[in-house]
């Protein structure tokens, strides 16, 4: 069984010496014209001392901070990438923030919760501190195919760490399995051999561990001749698509697969869900990968569903603040309302019975926000797979 921890650190090279590029050189900060669009668009700058423009400025005029330990606000970033997308000069402020985290990590100055998540990923292949042999427990009462040693996998269901271990999100994985079964899809999983994709690890700035995970996963995928991959989280999908260098195969999010199965007539809803539903675009599905239509097309085809958009939707959707390592980090000096609270209240104001999303982190932060915003009993948070499975 492939184990990340057993591979040993020799598996990759360290960057070799020479001139250490300054922050300005490394992140091409000199192109910045200090227009401030980054900070203006930043969802967390409203709520924390994080000021992206200022951090870029510090890097322009001098060596800049030595790491996120000197500018703890860098840990507040959710890596939603709005700043990078809005920059008129092509600067990548988000990369700078991740780079600052990386410098802290290199110096051993990771926040304790981040340290624990990283050590767990190295040891167990997941950031949740859970042992590897429990990774397939979510499927205990189901008949989920697990690929045998070297067995080819034309369609891989890459479950991901949070759906595999978090009791709430396990329900989503189980709902998805029921949908795949109903549509007669042939697929396979890695069972306990699956390891973290590295998305959060990379965003916490632990580049070395990320490379180790990439290498391990590539080997695992190649050993099974994986064809296409459906991921249980937009975060995993984004990482496989954009951060693994060479493509690892066709990668889709489950909402895309469900839409396709409906298009092809393989998935049919026999039941109905008589509910007013609205949808929260996960950043890593929407903003990062422009997947806006497929989830909506699934929702609209569920019999009985009355769908209505939130005001801030699609490209303008509010971030839930669960990404970029923020599941492990409390933002610095938080003030004002948490964005997830705002989101839940908006949905309640819209009169929705259910706020649907399509991401494990969004699901967890929104569900938590139902309690913290005092909306208990007023609205339900469901994943798109759960809602669809209700109509089977």
């Amino acid at each position, binding site marked *: 069984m492939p184990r990340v921890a057993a591979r040993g650190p020799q598996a990759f090279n360290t960057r070799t010496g020479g001139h250490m590029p300054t922050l300005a050189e490394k992140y091409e900060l000199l192109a910045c014209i200090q227009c401030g669009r980054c900070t203006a668009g930043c969802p967390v700058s409203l709520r924390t001392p994080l000021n992206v423009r200022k951090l870029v400025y510090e890097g322009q005029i001098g060596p800049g901070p030595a790491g996120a330990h000197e500018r703890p606000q860098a840990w507040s970033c959710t890596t939603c990438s709005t700043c990078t997308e809005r920059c008129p000069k092509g600067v990548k402020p988000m990369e700078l923030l991740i780079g600052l985290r990386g410098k802290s990590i290199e110096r051993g100055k990771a926040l*304790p*919760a981040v340290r624990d998540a990283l050590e767990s990923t190295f040891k167990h292949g997941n950031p*949740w*501190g859970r042992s590897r042999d429990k990774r397939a427990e979510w499927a205990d009462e189901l008949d989920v195919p697990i690929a045998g040693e070297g067995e080819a996998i034309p369609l891989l269901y890459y479950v991901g760490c949070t759906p595999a271990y*978090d*009791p*709430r999100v396990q329900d989503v994985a189980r709902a998805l399995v029921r949908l795949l079964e109903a549509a007669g899809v042939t697929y396979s999983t890695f069972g306990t051999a699956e390891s973290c994709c590295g998305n959060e690890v990379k965003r916490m700035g632990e580049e070395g561990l990320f490379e180790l995970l990439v290498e391990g996963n590539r080997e695992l995928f190649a050993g099974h001749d994986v064809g296409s991959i459906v991921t249980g989280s937009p975060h995993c999908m984004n990482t496989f698509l954009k951060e693994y260098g060479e493509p690892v195969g066709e990668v889709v999010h489950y909402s895309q697969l469900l839409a396709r199965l409906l298009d092809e007539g393989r998935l049919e809803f026999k039941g109905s869900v008589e509910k007013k539903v609205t949808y929260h675009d996960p950043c890593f599905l929407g903003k990062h990968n422009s997947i806006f239509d497929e989830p909506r097309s699934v929702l609209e085809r569920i019999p009985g569903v009355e769908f209505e958009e939130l005001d801030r939707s699609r490209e303008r959707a509010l971030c839930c603040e669960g990404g970029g390592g923020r599941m*492990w980090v409390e933002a610095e000096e938080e003030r004002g309302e948490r964005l997830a609270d705002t989101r839940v209240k908006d949905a309640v104001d819209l009169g929705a019975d259910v706020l649907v999303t399509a991401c494990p982190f969004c699901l967890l932060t929104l569900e938590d926000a139902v309690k913290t915003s005092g909306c208990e009993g007023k609205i339900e948070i469901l994943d798109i797979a759960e809602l669809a499975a209700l109509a089977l």
Partner: protein
Amino acid sequence: MNDVLVLAEHLNGELKDVTFEMLTHARVLADAGGAKVAAVLFGSGVGDLAEKLTAEADEVLVRDHDGFANYNSAVYQPVLADVIRGREPSVVMIGHTAFGVDLAPSLSVALDAPLATDLIDLAVEGTDLVATRQTHGGKVNERVGFGDAAVRLVTVRPAAFAPQAGSRGGSVIALDTDVPQEPAFRRFVEYVEAAAGDVDITKSDVVIAIGRGIKEEENLAMINEFAELLGGVVACSRPVVDAGWLPKDRQVGSSGKTVKPKLYVAIGVSGQFQHVAGMKSAETIVAINKDPKAPIFQAAHFGIVGDLMKVVPALTEKITELRA
């Protein structure tokens, strides 16, 4: 078999429970081997403690000396080594406590005698003594022998044996073994009492204790809610304090507080003996743990094997329903 020697441990004028527990078992061993039980008591002004021990042992060997006013292994060790050399007991029992752990290994080197630590049992088997101890967090029992050693040293886990009052009527024997001056290389400075916090967990009838299984500080909210529902306080195991999630005064166990509530609910606590030492006398003990083999289920009266992230919310809901 020669004597069974038990080192009496005391602090602030009181003998520790483990002393009586060891003496109880020492009598069993001595009776089986046709030997005597000798208690060894070092201290300053400990005459009344010696009297208390006469019922427990055949002999109470006392060295009353100023040099023993405070514990210092560098003073205890050479004196105890002398006593042992003089009497050649078959076995010397010392508590597996902060005191015993500091002393026993150095005694073992000084005497060149084998030492088995943290015993939960010690039995005569044929002509040999066999110790039982636990490894891997209480998931494995290990049986250990002592080869052909004449003197065997052991440290005994507190609460491993249930104490029974003895009726030996032993004699008190005052020793005159040399007590060295406190050496310059190790000096006792002072005792510092733990600071009191906002909540006194020893005063509550209901204690909800969390362990490392809680995984994240965030999950405390769920526990607080549950504790509030039952009108209890939240306590914890040591790793939760180490992580900084709760203050030290909430720690239950040997290096924390001892609680005796009517209800103790251990959530995500594995049940190492250092933890159990602080809660075993609770009237009703409930354990919630994913691992059916976790030792906490041995200490508990009721258990749920399951994921605390699911069980605690479900339990909160059921209790709320029952109340409604």
